[in-house]
């Protein structure tokens, strides 16, 4: 690691030193209304939950190393994958990019001093942390954590004696947190753009947050009420979905997926926004098809709300519904494909800088493409009958949610790190970590496509001997992945504390955040900037590029 003395552009106390309140120490953080601090609060708590969920994943893979019982019994296995799913989905991937990087960077990127409702922003974080704590506590209550799977399908979720109720409350609180964040971002984007920043001069990450915000506001309440109905059914026997009382369990599935499918667009849209930010910088070219990408975000948000029942093709719907939803599922792939074409076109004849943010973006494109294609396979009715509830599905959604959004989060971390902390991480170590993570990731998940296709069911802790070879490869992949993740995070944490000082604009980006100091001052800007050119215009800008010698 080279210890090159970096020109430090930091000349004023940053938001780390200047608080929005009169408290000191941890209290000044817990009562902050500074969007940057709130973003970091989310980051640290979220990464804790991520680590816990990774650990559960590790245990799952360990159990699947051999057929039959390896380390845990059947019910514990059910609880493991339930918790893994709940934590990953509600505490990591859905809040993920909006809560951390949206909070930190949205105001800066539009030239504002904060979001429009700063105290509501803090409330969002408290709702998040409350949900997380309740979910964590449910693990230790008598009866153990829920074993229903993260989908809480009726009637089992009403019958089981495990702690479903805390899990439902946690999910409800997290949904509320998500709603308030979306509401805050949409209003902020409408009202607080700097003078001259028209809608079409906004960065694409901002566009993605805008589209995501609408999904958060309009879709999340549906799961809110659905989860409340499960609670009501457990406690008061209201029986709206209970077949014994005339209810229809398939209707529960409809309501559940009316939110949970759009939820995956809450997950992926900001990640696509991050990719749209990173590629122009590291290819040194303006983004290809800015308006197409902006509108495709809105189109994905809209069309993504129309396809939910593709999770229910074997549940017992009418044939007409099957046809319609299958058709719509194929249609929603089009705007996503447009984005991939635009990203690749941006790189064409560009001057590529293969730094860690860009490397993670490359992995994203590769993995998201696989995830997308396999999604289309699952969208075909005849194929779905064979592949549904197999490992194929598990691989598909991990490729889009983890290989896609997860890697998008890693890319964002490596891209914006120097701005957030004013320091740089070791790029060589980061590159190695990226390679190990990517190899480990694909070794872990790709075999699941094959074994799923061959018939291995999902959520089974026991299996026929012919599947073992795939399980072993996959489990070894999980170990490689975890080693890579540890390396990646350790490198970042060391960089936070001891990395060399980073300048304002280490990557040569042109969006507004790169014009502030690293780390930013509390109000982001002394004077609100006036915008007169697009967000990816490299024509006149002089870049000061400083990076560690490789």
């Amino acid at each position, binding site marked *: 690691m080279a210890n090159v003395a970096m020109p430090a552009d930091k000349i004023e106390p940053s938001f780390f030193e200047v608080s929005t309140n009169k408290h000191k120490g941890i209290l000044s953080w817990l009562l902050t209304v500074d969007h940057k601090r709130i973003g970091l609060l989310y980051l640290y708590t979220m990464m804790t939950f991520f680590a816990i969920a990774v650990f559960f994943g590790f245990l799952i893979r360990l159990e699947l190393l051999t057929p039959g019982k390896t380390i845990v019994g059947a019910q514990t296995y059910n609880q493991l994958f339930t918790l893994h799913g709940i934590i990953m989905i509600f505490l990591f991937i859905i809040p993920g990019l909006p809560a951390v990087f949206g909070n930190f960077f949205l105001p800066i990127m539009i030239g504002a001093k904060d979001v429009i409702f700063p105290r509501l922003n803090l409330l969002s974080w408290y709702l998040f942390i409350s949900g997380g704590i309740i979910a964590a506590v449910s693990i230790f209550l008598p009866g153990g954590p829920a074993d229903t799977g993260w989908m809480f399908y009726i009637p089992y979720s009403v019958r089981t004696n495990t702690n479903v109720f805390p899990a439902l409350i946690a999910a409800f609180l997290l949904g509320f947190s998500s709603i308030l964040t979306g509401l805050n971002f949409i209003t902020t984007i409408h009202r607080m753009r700097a003078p001259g920043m028209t809608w079409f001069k906004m960065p694409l990450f901002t566009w993605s947050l805008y589209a995501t915000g*609408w999904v958060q506001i309009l879709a999340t309440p549906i799961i809110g009420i659905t989860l409340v109905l499960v609670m009501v059914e457990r406690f008061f026997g209201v029986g709206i979905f209970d077949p014994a009382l005339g209810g229809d369990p398939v*209707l529960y599935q409809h309501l559940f997926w009316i939110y949970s499918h759009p939820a995956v667009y809450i997950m992926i849209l900001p990640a696509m926004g991050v990719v749209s930010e990173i590629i122009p910088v590291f290819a040194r070219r303006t983004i290809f098809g800015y308006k197409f990408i902006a509108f495709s975000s809105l189109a994905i948000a809209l069309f993504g*709300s*129309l396809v939910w*029942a593709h999770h229910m093709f074997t549940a017992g*719907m*009418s044939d007409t*519904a099957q046809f319609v939803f299958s058709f719509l599922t194929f249609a929603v792939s089009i705007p996503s494909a447009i984005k991939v074409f635009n990203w690749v076109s941006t790189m064409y004849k560009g001057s590529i800088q293969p730094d860690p943010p860009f490397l993670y973006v490359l992995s994203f494109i590769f993995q998201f493409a696989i995830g997308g294609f396999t999604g289309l396979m699952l969208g075909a009715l005849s194929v779905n009958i064979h592949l549904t509830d197999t490992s194929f599905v598990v691989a598909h959604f991990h490729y889009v949610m983890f290989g896609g959004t997860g890697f998008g989060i890693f890319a964002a971390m490596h891209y914006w790190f120097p701005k957030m902390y004013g320091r740089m991480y070791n790029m060589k170590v980061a590159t190695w970590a990226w390679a190990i993570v990517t190899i480990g990731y694909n070794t872990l998940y790709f075999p699941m496509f094959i074994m799923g296709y061959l018939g291995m069911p999902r959520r089974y802790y026991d299996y026929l001997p012919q599947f073992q070879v795939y399980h072993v490869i996959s489990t070894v992949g999980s170990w490689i992945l975890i080693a890579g993740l540890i390396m990646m995070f350790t490198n970042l944490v060391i960089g936070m504390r001891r990395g060399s000082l980073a300048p304002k604009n280490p990557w040569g980006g042109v969006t507004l955040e790169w014009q502030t100091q690293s780390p930013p001052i509390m109000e982001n800007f002394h004077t609100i900037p006036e915008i007169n050119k697009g967000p990816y215009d490299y024509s006149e800008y002089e870049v000061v590029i400083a990076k560690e010698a490789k």
Partner: protein
Amino acid sequence: MSDHHNHEQAHVVEYGKYIFVWISLLAFTGITVSVAGINFGNWTIVIALLIASVKSWYVLNYFMHLKYEDVVFKVFIFVALLTLGIFIALTFIDYSFVR
């Protein structure tokens, strides 16, 4: 943002207008109750929802000031209602046909 935004919503709706809207709402309530006794078969619910929608239109536009707000708010409402409508319609595609 300059402060003149704070005084833009100076449009005052007079008491009389509210009273007029209220009377209309009462009238529509009366209509919907008396019409409920008539057998329209499958159209009963359509008529009931239609009258409820008219009442909502009054509440939204006058009591909630939507009529006097920026067009952005009207687009927002349209998007929200469209979304709910889509959810209902697509769910019915399952239930309206033989399962």
